[in-house]
């Protein structure tokens, strides 16, 4: 019924794509003999066009919207930015984003690094690594739902004789076994933000471990053996040999996780919906733009997020170049 025209559309798209590629390659082949910059431009041109339509134009448009009112039509100067930095709720949003970005990368990288060092060349290394890497395979929303169950809380004061309260959340059941009072993890602020961060660490530690483990394995054996001959201990080996050798990889891991924390959206939206003082910039941006019809403020939040991400990316690229140069 509906699939026939869709299939036809898809075929068309594929044919069109092929045609465009053929034209580009044809042109490139035509100019190849002459070589030089001009050929380069022909290769770059399609990307340039797509980047300007898909990235540059929306970015400029968003920047402009951020100086406009809720409907996105009347110029209001920096009012939206003032609102972000003065409104008490928006300040909580900023505070949470800072917490996410500061805590997650270091903790996740530290866990990943320690794990990588510990399992390196150990027995059953592959299995041990697979175990910590598995959460990476789960989507953020899936992970959030799993952890929502982990944190689930039933008030012990509730229930009835017929139907007494049982903790269905694993963590609270552990507390009950330890004869402690169950905790409403997701309600009490500001701890709840940390409980959300745990989910991100759970996912990202595997990523950190994989990258760092690979670069530990890339350390030349001669260096390690030389250090051994000099009689260094395990800690000194880590501090003076391993860590300096993998420094570029550590930087990449830290910055990558930091960027994903700045943009974190799924976890907060799925687990608390941004309530109970757990909101972060990306979720607030979505809510302001699409639910509360305040496009100016939404755009301002998007711009702030962009400004926060840029320095990290610049640093990341520089480190990459530096390590490539070596």
């Amino acid at each position: 019924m509906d699939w026939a025209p869709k299939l036809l559309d898809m075929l068309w798209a594929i044919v069109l794509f092929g045609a465009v590629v053929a034209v580009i390659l044809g042109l490139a082949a035509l100019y190849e003999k002459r070589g030089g910059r001009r050929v380069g431009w022909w290769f770059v041109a399609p990307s340039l066009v797509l980047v300007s339509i898909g990235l540059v134009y929306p970015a400029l448009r968003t920047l402009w919207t951020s100086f406009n009112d809720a409907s996105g039509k009347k110029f209001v100067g920096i009012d939206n930015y003032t609102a972000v930095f003065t409104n008490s709720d928006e300040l909580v949003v900023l505070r949470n984003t800072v917490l996410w970005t500061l805590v997650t990368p270091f903790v996740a990288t530290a866990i990943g690094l320690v794990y990588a060092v510990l399992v390196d060349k150990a027995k059953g290394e592959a299995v041990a690594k697979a175990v910590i890497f598995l959460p990476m395979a789960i989507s953020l929303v899936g992970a959030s739902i799993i952890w929502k169950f982990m944190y689930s809380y039933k008030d012990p004061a509730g229930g009835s004789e017929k139907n007494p309260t049982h903790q269905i959340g694993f963590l609270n059941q552990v507390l009950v076994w330890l004869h402690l009072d169950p905790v409403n993890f997701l309600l009490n602020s500001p701890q709840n933000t940390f409980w959300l961060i745990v989910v991100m660490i759970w996912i990202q530690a595997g990523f950190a471990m994989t990258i760092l483990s690979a670069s530990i394995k890339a350390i030349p054996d001669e260096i390690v053996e030389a250090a051994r001959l000099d009689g260094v201990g395990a800690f000194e080996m880590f501090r003076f040999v391993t860590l300096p050798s993998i420094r570029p990889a550590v930087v990449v891991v830290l910055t990558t996780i930091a960027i994903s924390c700045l943009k974190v959206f799924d976890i907060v939206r799925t687990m608390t919906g941004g309530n109970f003082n757990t909101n972060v910039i990306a979720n607030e941006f979505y809510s302001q733009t699409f639910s509360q019809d305040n496009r100016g403020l939404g755009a301002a939040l998007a711009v702030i997020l962009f400004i926060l991400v840029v320095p990290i990316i610049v640093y990341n690229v520089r480190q990459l170049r530096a390590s490539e140069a070596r």
Partner: protein
Amino acid sequence: MTSKTRVRTARYGSFFAATAAIALVVAGCSSSDDDNGGGGSTGGSTAAGDIDCSQFSSYGDLKGKEVTIYAGVVAPEDQPYVDSFKPFEKCTGVKVNYTADKNFEQQVLVQAEAGNAPDLAIVPQPGLLKQLVATGKAVKAPDSVSQNADKWFGADWKKYGTVDGTFYAAPSGASVKSLVWYSPTQFASAGYEVPTTLDDLKALSDKMVADGNKPWCAGINSGEATGWPITDWVEDFVLRLDGPDVYDQWVAGDVKFTDPKIVSAFDGVGAYLKNSDYVNAGIGDVKSIATTTFQDAGLNIDPVNGDGSCWLHRQASFYAANFDKNANIGPDGDVYAFYLPGKTADDHPVLGAGEFVLAFSDRPEVQALQTFWSTDTWANLKAKASSEDTKGGWISANKGLDEANLVGPIDKLSVQILKDPKTVFRFDGSDQMPAAVGSGSFWKQATNWITGQSTQDTVTKIQAAWPKS
């Protein structure tokens, strides 16, 4: 409001629904070819059965045309819609394409602005209707729809479909929100009586406490929309304590949230929801209201499928769908609802909500369907289809709606409440307020209020989000 469409939880896979929808479209399509103008031989459902096609003749020759509808009503509640259009499809030869998704409220705005809006949209809030009209893509209702709206709906309902003096959208479905769920069997065995005034309700709650029971259960968790059930509570109390005039001024923004009248309504709600003697029956303390989903909150009203630990639960008529499908719902059953009483037994304010049919095109076939949609014929067809497909769960404020077509006891109760001559109906206020308040600060601050924020801080923060211009 997102939450209200979320009430309709999908019971069947979307695949099944999609297949069924496609199959029905095929059926409607093919039958229009062979028996255009005749009685039904195909279809099977009574909705498409004995329909008089002569009433469609005024729409002219529309054979082979197509109308797209977009809505937030997903499976299984989409099926009655599809079925209700079958006679129209059959008699006019127009093909009706119904699509729905749960992100309707955000998506329809995006679609309208991008210029690929559907022909017709089922808009569940006047606030969203205003936003859609503001995009400049919506089309005002033709005279035929306007006349139907005058004939079959009250003036107040027509007003909710009107933006800046121009009538755009006729009402479709409706729901009654001023309901308190209880268990008639439990009440009978405990010797409790259904209260008829607000003071009675308070006295009843106190009596339950004295008997060693926690009377009320509540839950407001609903993802991003967390907090909306409290906004309904507050609206009900503004209506009861301050009257419909103050309510209208409040919704329009002329009476501020910080006004002592609104503050006292908040405190009136607080006397129930923030009273640790009253809540949260079977669930926990006051704060547990914030983390309990609204779907789960009232299930323990039912002494058979739940544990009967909760005595009173204020929630709209659509909550009926949340109870176990075997629950005995009825005036003498295990679960039923009573009207949340007014200040005196003669006061009869009713808070409710509804849907409106907004057009983005003025093609003849679109206007034809829009006109048909605003008639009593359609309302009755839809009620019948809902009764058959989903055991009810749908009512309309259409005056021509025949109660005999309703099977759900709560549907019957809701229509009786709507038709009561003493009834002063008011539409859900947060649905009409600017989105920054109605879908933003009102929800959020109400949530903070239940977790401990003072009433004064709460109203100040809500008011601060009200757009300046």
